[in-house]
């Protein structure tokens, strides 16, 4: 495969195949550092606080949240959509970018996918605990029962059940299938012992046989082909949660593609936030380079601008529709009591990513880190704006109301960060953060300098 010399190398420094193995295996070797323990402890504390908040919710009731008769969803569902959105980057990178033959994906897909899976787990928590009767949550499964009641296949929440669980399952499969060869590599690096046995079992007996590789590639491609529409479907269905209603601000046809775009946008931002720290923390700077940064930031501009256009489209069509409720909903977003949320959203999501039009900024790790956090915040507020400001003033002014979260809701949110980072810390300790085999496959064409060993 020929690669134009004009292209910027993706992997910096002098690399050989075994150097790649060594570099990526390095963070898993030896005893973890103090920083790792400190991070894990902090994450566990946050997780426990979240657990306690969930306990309070289940024991005392959803009344411990700031919701009310008008606003039935608040932080809980905002967080759900936010986490699901973040959970879109990994599969987007590994599936859609695979289909588009984007080589830079190889350095980041593994950790992005792991992040996806963890984020989807965090997300999946919210629809469960936002139920008034969590212990009866199993009602949402269509299982045969003595009352002959099935479920309501009209309900977008039910679609969510299928979409999120399918997405999680397929993402895990995809991720793990990609991991098998690399676990094999780790297995072969380890001295005999329990650890080796465990990795040996986890590697499913990987041999690196050419036949297996052929099937593996074929499977990966088709899985990517399946996962691509799946990624779209998940946030599409999440958007249906809102768009199928009649509530102004919720019911708008642009939601499906706009939500997907926003999801990828936020997902990429979160990947960037994490990768920029991780590459430093575990010395993978030569694998995640400015070239990666630039490519990812281009996707951030693209998706961020799509989101921005969607905002403006919504705003314009609300006026154009001539429907008073629609018009009011959008005026209220921008200038009502929650104006600040709207303008935070607008600033963080539409304006800040435009800075990436400047090459210097999109190639700067520091600037990207800051902007990625802005985007994360902005995308959280986007969901807050959609959910809360649409609900708090809908059709009948008599029911208009305000929403303020309680410590319990905040606690659960903090708890999901705890869960996220606990799992992420475990991941970076026990699994190769970069897809070793995939990087090797592009090493010759994309490394700054490839060293042939032996001979």
């Amino acid at each position: 495969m020929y690669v134009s010399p004009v292209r910027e190398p993706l992997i910096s420094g002098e690399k050989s195949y075994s150097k790649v193995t060594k570099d990526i295996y390095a963070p898993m070797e030896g005893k973890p550092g103090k920083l790792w323990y400190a991070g894990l402890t902090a994450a566990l504390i946050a997780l426990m606080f979240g657990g306690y908040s969930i306990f309070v919710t289940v024991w005392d009731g959803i009344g411990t949240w700031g919701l009310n008769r008008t606003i039935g969803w608040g932080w809980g569902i905002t967080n759900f959509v936010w986490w699901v959105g973040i959970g879109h980057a990994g599969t987007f990178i590994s599936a859609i970018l695979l289909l588009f033959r984007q080589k830079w994906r190889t350095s980041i897909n593994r950790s992005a996918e792991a992040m996806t899976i963890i984020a989807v787990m965090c997300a999946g928590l919210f629809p469960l605990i936002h139920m008034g009767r969590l212990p009866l949550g199993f009602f949402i499964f269509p299982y045969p029962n003595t009352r002959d009641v099935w479920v309501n296949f009209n309900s977008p929440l039910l679609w969510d059940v299928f979409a999120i669980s399918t997405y999680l399952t397929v993402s895990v499969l995809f991720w793990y299938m990609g991991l098998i060869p690399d676990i094999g590599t780790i297995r072969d690096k380890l001295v005999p012992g329990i650890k080796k046995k465990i990795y040996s079992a986890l590697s499913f007996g990987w041999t690196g046989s050419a036949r297996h590789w052929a099937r593996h590639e074929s499977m990966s491609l088709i899985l990517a082909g399946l996962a691509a529409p799946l990624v779209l479907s998940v946030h599409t269905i999440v958007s249906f949660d809102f768009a199928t209603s009649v509530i102004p601000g919720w019911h708008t046809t642009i939601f499906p593609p706009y939500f997907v775009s926003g999801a990828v946008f936020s997902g990429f931002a979160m990947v960037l936030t994490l990768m920029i720290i991780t590459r430093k923390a575990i010395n993978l700077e030569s694998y995640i380079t400015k070239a990666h940064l630039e490519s990812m930031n281009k996707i951030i501009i693209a998706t961020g601008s799509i989101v921005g256009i969607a905002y403006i489209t919504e705003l314009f069509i609300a006026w154009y529709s001539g429907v008073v409720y629609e018009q009011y909903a959008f005026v209220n977003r921008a200038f009502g009591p929650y104006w600040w949320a709207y303008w935070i959203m607008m600033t963080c999501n539409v304006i800040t990513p435009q800075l990436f039009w400047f090459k210097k900024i999109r190639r700067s790790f520091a600037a990207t880190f800051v902007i990625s956090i802005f985007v994360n915040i902005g995308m959280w507020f986007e969901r807050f704006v959609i959910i809360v400001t649409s609900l708090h003033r809908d059709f009948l002014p008599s029911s208009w109301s305000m929403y303020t979260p309680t410590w319990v809701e905040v606690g659960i949110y903090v708890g999901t960060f705890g869960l996220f980072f606990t799992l992420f810390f475990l991941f970076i300790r026990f699994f190769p953060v970069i897809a070793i085999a995939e990087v090797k496959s592009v090493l010759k064409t994309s490394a700054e300098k490839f060293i042939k060993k032996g001979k």
Partner: protein
Amino acid sequence: MYKSFEFTQNIKKFLIALMVIGALLTVVGVFMNLDHMHRIMANVLLNGFYFTAIAMGAAFFVVVHILGESGWHTAIQRIPEALGQYIPVGGVIMLLVLLGMGDLYHWTHPDPDDTILLGKVPFLNPVFFSIRTVVYIVVWTLLVRKLRKMSLASDSSPDDIKLFTRTRNWSGIFIVIFAITSSTSAWDWIMSIDSHWFSTLFGWYIFVSSFVAAVAMVIILLFVLRRMGYMDHVNEEHMHDLGKYLFGFSVFWAYLWVSQYLLIWYSNIPEETIYFVKRQEDFGMIFWANVIINFLAPFLILMARGTKRKMNWLLVSAIIVFVGHWIDMYVAIWPGSVGHADFGLLEIGMTLLVLGVFLFSFFRHFAKAPVVPENHPYFKESFDYDNIR
């Protein structure tokens, strides 16, 4: 090494014949429908818009590959590039639409008690509408010309990386402008026909529709050119990629169609459902045919790997999709302007006429330059890559 295309007299004759036949049928059709001005104008709009949209879709195709740092597309880049040059011609037809605005757009003469339409007057009024139409055409023309010029310039200046960078920058400008105008033009020209109706997705839906049609047109022309003995360098991998585009974006189009339909179906709010009620009741067959042709046909044909790599299968699906999206536009335009399904000499004639003009424009521009941009920095990549099995 790469044979340049020659716009031979034979081809010209064929296209002129096509145009003449089209023109004759159009004239007959116009005379038959002199008291149905809205039908005549609907035809002008449909063909004027459809081919302009294909041209813009093709230009977008090039631009997005430039921005995406793509290499494979360079082998076929000149086809969509030449397609884009049709914009000013299509623009002239769109200017005809302005003349017949009153017959197409209900908002040009709202009922005095129609508060909703009256509320839209600041946006939907003949003057502003005309200004917007002209602006779209002029800006688009300038953009496609500029990009074409830079592409042609590369032929004479090898290793000019700065030119490549400039092209990329202009592509960025193109995409920003097109991101906005693609939606607004669709609202203006198509959505405002059903003057009361609105859908935030509509602009994107029409854009994807025209993008798919543009890919189909590229495939059709690639086939034609190969039959004429050009573009031999195009291999299975390129076809595979074009096939993936046709497949993928047909599915994406279907996704947007379903998104729009499902949401409106689900909420069942009259101000929105009226759009589909009209189409299901009065255009039932065509309405559902649209979905089947444009989704199921390419989906089933191109799902397998093999069909994507065979020119004939590709061609069949491309023709289906090309006709299918003509129908898509028909379903979007007819109910609001004509009110009932008509198909006759007028429709056939006008389509052939504009198609003839469109192809003439394409061949003329395609003949002006080498069939590939040999000095494109990623050009060689296009011949050393393959699709995973």
